[in-house]
């Protein structure tokens, strides 16, 4: 049973990735849709990352001030804006999280 669900979910997921690349969809996208799609990277990635930072996994509540991940994310954002470097951003974020969790 689990294999069936895995494979069906896999086929569906592939479908979500492929559907807009089929000829009849891809050739029919109007100009304004293409303009709007320029905002997809920012909108989707923000929608995933903000709850991952602000929502406490155990209580499902939004936690801002007593939340080490929030301050780590702020630190990572500052580093990202200053350096525009992926490795510096990820490592500064993880390092600030560890420092706050273990020493503060």
């Amino acid at each position, binding site marked *: 049973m689990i294999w069936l669900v895995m494979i069906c979910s896999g086929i569906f997921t592939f479908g979500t990735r492929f559907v807009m690349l089929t000829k009849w969809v891809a050739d029919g996208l109007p100009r304004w849709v293409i303009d709007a799609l320029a905002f997809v990277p920012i909108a989707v990635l923000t929608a995933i990352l903000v709850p991952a930072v602000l929502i406490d996994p155990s209580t499902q509540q939004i936690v801002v001030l007593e939340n080490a*991940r929030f301050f780590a994310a702020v630190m990572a954002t500052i580093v990202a804006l200053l350096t525009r470097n992926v490795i510096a951003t990820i490592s500064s974020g993880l390092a600030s999280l560890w420092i706050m969790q273990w020493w503060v």
Partner: protein
Amino acid sequence: MVPPLVPPAIQRNMGRFYHSYDHLPHSSHARHQCSRHATAEFWLGVRHELPLQLGVIPFGLVFGILGLASGLTGLQTILLSSILFGGASQVVFAQLWAAGVPPLVVGGSVGVVNLRHVLYSASMAQYLRHLPLRWRILLGYLLTDEAYAVSIKRFQDGPHSPYQHYHLLGSGVTLWVAWQASTIAGVIAGTTIPDSWSLSFAIPLTFIAVVAPSIRRRADLVACVVAATLSLICQPLPWKSWIMVAACGGVAAGWLTHYQTQKQDRITPDNDRGMS
């Protein structure tokens, strides 16, 4: 950045131009040029994708551990990484399966979490639509958050090249290899990695690394703020559909701001850009 406006006719011709190389006899000069440009694009994709693996590999390890902890076998955990090939949806799958949720709900939740790929697919369509079917199937399979994030940036920022789809191949293959390897490592390492390391936090950090520097216009900022707000407000929605609601809201808000800005620009006399 607004993607470069290439009329469909020219784009189709570019595709024909490039594919005509495939029918030339080997050892021709044109063929050599073709493979050289393609290789360069592929390795550029690999190089752009590699830094993000600092976030992907810890998450793969975490998923390998979580899969076993949820009662999946090692083989199921590892194959889930190539069958689904989407980190967040794999976590949802493992957690719901462990909780004894009905299979249809497991599949449905995975589907809703992955619906965002429709948006990725749509925004890639204008760059990939001239490719033969086998290419579009392969690149579709490889179209994940992280590969999309770096390759769409390359496509939008240009310069346009008939071989640019090799960039997505490079970023996609890099992510695929890292994801499979780190899942296997997580299954083998098992519980030796303590929870307190918060390794799953590496993924939101990679997204920060991509999103923060890409906010350049007012419309980008609006898209970001609206998506963030909706993603928090819409948490109670069933089946994690808040991802899609927040994503679509952000896209719509960004586009409206962009449209307003352009309309204002058109009033000024020395403007030659129209919406057409």
